[in-house]
């Protein structure tokens, strides 16, 4: 919390504004990044380790100066240095300490600075830690990485200077958008950026593999944990974004297929395809071109998302700021895409698969089907996002593509992915007999049918919801049976109890079972989505003492309490919730006026249970204390957040697993039918 003493601001950093040092620091970082790119390039081309090591040291220096520039901007925020335009636009004296910190990424310039910070720091760490990888691969990766850093530091130096000064400093700043004053906003953007930036590491090493012609699995091994870190951060960032929308925006939902949401979802989809297809490369030395193409696509989509949201070409409720940096992104994206495709094309012969498929019915085929579905899903989201622009450009007619389009086009693909999530683990690598698969399918299918029957007889009347719940039951059973089968082997061999056998099973193969835990988390999330079929919504104008009904609940509006804090005027509505004659709880939705930004903002109140959420929001207040109360009953929403937590646990198990070892591929031998059955 910033303090004021006789007009002098004190801040928790214990320093005045160091903004004057920010721009020189950024320019120095840019110079070091450029030097790093050149030195690594020369080191790679001339096979001179001293040059590439100097290049990597230069990239570490670029990271250090970017860290210092970020620190300088933070001191400006905490010292209320409103001579800095960015500080004046996104903070105010009344902003609390945590949000003064998060104001750093409240606008475009700060977001790009955060991007550059994560990029340079993660890049420096990844390059320093890749000591076991071949030096030429690391040198090329250093050249690619420093080039990426140059682009983002150039943006900060020229079109998006976060240290630009105003001619006259205002007495107070405009404050942070009230929507961004939420605990979720303290971690959601950094996690998303960590995800986006994290994919730069496998991308840089993938391009380095192409440039150095080291087209084996070294680049995948060197970046496996980084890829998982990036994917996990993006996954959790997306879920936290949904949680933020749910608790802040007041429309009772968590996903609106907004262009900014889509911008984060597209690279997630291609990255998920990549995470699955690299398993085939590791195990069977196949799909090398495909994997390089996927990581190229993931990186391009991550940058494309930033272009979409920062260029202002698409309207979005999430676009809190925009500038003219968009025009720099298009040539950069074109360069990356063309150079990437050209490189892959020139190395195509060296990238051919070392093995072939033994059978159409095999785990490999399931992974390929998985990739087709994820790519089709990513394309659908991309097409829906850019279609309004394309159509207007071609026909002059402005059409919209909103959530109903995405739901209709995406949900069938999503359900097919869920089905495959259950089917995949049951299919063995290389070859499987149809009869063996059908035998394994019997129990999951039977349980799915029982669940669908029970829900259908219990009143679920939506075909989509029944299908989704049935597929979730199928997949959960199929994945769960893998844990049972694995544990049974340990139990028999080592005479362990079931919990100990389960623990041993997971510990022995953390990559596989961590993946399965993630899949179970996804199933729980889909159960939460499917609950939306029974969503109920009511809106009423209420005077104090009046009540309304929604579902089984009665909501009685008792009174409106008004108060004032340094940041806002608070209007707190007391809503008594009863169910039949039973009291349930008191909810306190608010309708507040933020003084610095002069904006009115609703604060929702939610009673959450695993069965359903009761969600209330005040959308209007008049002078007589009458309110417009909008209420929702959202069934099963709790499971979305529970599923995300399970996914997070699974990611932890996955990341704790060892990197794959290089296993010489033995000549395949046939197991006798007797041994196999």
């Amino acid at each position: 919390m910033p303090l004021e003493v006789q007009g002098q601001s004190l801040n928790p950093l214990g320093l005045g504004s160091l903004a004057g040092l920010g721009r020189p620091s950024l320019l120095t970082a840019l110079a070091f990044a450029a030097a790093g790119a050149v030195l690594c390039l020369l080191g790679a081309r001339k096979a001179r380790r001293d040059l590439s090591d100097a290049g990597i040291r230069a990239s570490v220096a670029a990271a250090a100066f970017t860290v210092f520039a970020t620190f300088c901007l933070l001191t400006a925020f905490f010292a209320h240095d409103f001579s800095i335009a960015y500080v004046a636009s996104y903070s105010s004296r009344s902003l609390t300490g945590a949000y003064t910190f998060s104001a750093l990424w409240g606008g475009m310039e700060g977001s790009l600075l955060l991007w550059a910070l994560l990029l340079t720091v993660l890049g420096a760490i990844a390059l320093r830690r890749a000591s076991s990888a071949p030096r030429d691969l690391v040198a090329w990766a250093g050249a690619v990485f420093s080039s990426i850093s140059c682009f983002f530091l150039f943006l900060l130096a020229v079109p998006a200077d976060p240290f630009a000064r105003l001619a006259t400093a205002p007495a107070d700043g405009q404050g942070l958008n009230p929507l961004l004053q939420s605990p979720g906003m303290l971690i959601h953007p950094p996690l998303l950026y960590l995800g986006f930036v994290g994919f730069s590491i496998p991308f840089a090493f993938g391009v380095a593999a192409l440039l150095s012609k080291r087209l084996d699995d070294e680049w995948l091994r060197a970046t496996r944990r980084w890829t998982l870190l990036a994917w996990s951060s993006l996954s959790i960032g997306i879920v936290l974004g949904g949680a933020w929308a749910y608790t802040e925006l007041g429309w009772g939902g968590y996903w609106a297929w907004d262009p900014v949401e889509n911008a984060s979802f597209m690279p997630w989809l291609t990255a998920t395809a990549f995470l699955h297809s690299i398993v085939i490369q590791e195990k069977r030395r196949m799909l090398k071109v495909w994997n390089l193409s996927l990581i190229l696509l993931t990186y391009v989509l991550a940058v494309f998302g930033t272009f979409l949201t920062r260029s202002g070409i698409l309207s979005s409720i999430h676009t809190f700021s925009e500038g003219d940096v968009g025009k720099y992104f298009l040539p950069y994206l074109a360069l990356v895409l063309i150079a990437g495709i050209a490189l892959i094309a020139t190395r195509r012969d060296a990238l051919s698969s070392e093995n072939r498929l033994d059978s159409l019915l095999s785990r490999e085929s399931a992974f390929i089907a998985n990739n087709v579905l994820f790519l089709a899903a990513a394309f659908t989201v991309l097409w829906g996002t850019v279609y309004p622009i394309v159509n207007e450009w071609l026909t002059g007619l402005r059409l919209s593509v909103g959530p109903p389009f995405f739901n209709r086009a995406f949900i069938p693909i999503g359900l097919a992915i869920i089905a495959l999530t259950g089917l995949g683990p049951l299919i063995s690598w290389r070859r499987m007999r149809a009869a063996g698969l059908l035998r394994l399918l019997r129990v999951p299918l039977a349980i799915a049918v029982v669940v669908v029957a029970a829900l259908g007889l219990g009143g679920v009347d939506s075909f989509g919801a029944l299908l989704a719940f049935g597929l979730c039951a199928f997949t959960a059973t199929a994945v769960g049976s893998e844990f049972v089968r694995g544990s049974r082997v340990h139990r028999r061999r080592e005479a362990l109890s079931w919990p100990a056998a389960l623990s041993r099973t997971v510990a022995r193969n953390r990559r596989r079972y961590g993946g399965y835990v993630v899949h179970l988390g996804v199933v729980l999330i889909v159960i939460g989505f499917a609950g939306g079929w029974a969503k109920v919504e009511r809106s009423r104008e209420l005077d104090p003492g009046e009540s309304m009904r929604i579902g089984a609940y009665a909501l009685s509006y008792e009174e409106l309490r008004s108060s004032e804090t340094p940041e806002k005027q608070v209007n707190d509505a007391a809503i008594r919730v009863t169910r039949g004659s039973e009291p349930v709880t008191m909810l306190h939705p608010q309708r507040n006026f933020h003084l610095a930004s002069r904006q009115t903002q609703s604060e929702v109140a939610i009673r959450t249970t695993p069965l359903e959420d009761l969600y209330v929001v005040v959308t209007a207040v008049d002078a007589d204390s009458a309110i417009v109360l909008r209420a929702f009953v959202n069934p099963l929403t709790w499971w979305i957040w529970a599923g995300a937590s399970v996914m997070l646990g699974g990611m932890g198990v996955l990341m704790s697993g060892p990197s794959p070892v290089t296993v010489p591929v033995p000549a395949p031998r046939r197991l006798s039918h007797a041994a196999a059955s």
Partner: protein
Amino acid sequence: MRAIAAAVACLILLASPAAAAPEDIANDISNEIMSPFCDGVTLHDCPSQEALELRNRIEAWVSEGQSRTQIMSHLEREFGAGIRAVPPAEGAGFVAWIPPLVALAAGAAGAWAIVRKWSRRTQAAPRVSVTMTSEEGHRLDQELAMLRAAASREGEWP
């Protein structure tokens, strides 16, 4: 398997939507149109006062007995074709629906062709195969892990 399929089909046939209240129909419609007052969100999700009033107008039209088609026509006349959140499945709007279907079909066909090609080549070569049940796979994994651990201790395996 046939019994399972028949049971699912019966349940689907039995499932029939209940009659909806005017407010529910109005909510459905406001989910199908973009808000003229907020950027990039449906009318349902738009928090502005104008959006609230338009939602109330739609509910009033529903209560008067107007059909969804009539209400959508009202809205399109007042705010333009861009108010529809779903491009119409005709004219320029139809184009929106084609590429995702084509991409999925082309992706599936491409993957099928590659898988067939790869597996044909394998079949032309001397037949080698491994057929294991999932349980045997677990056992093999376990034994491989023990082998790796032993080899790693002896410094033979990285």
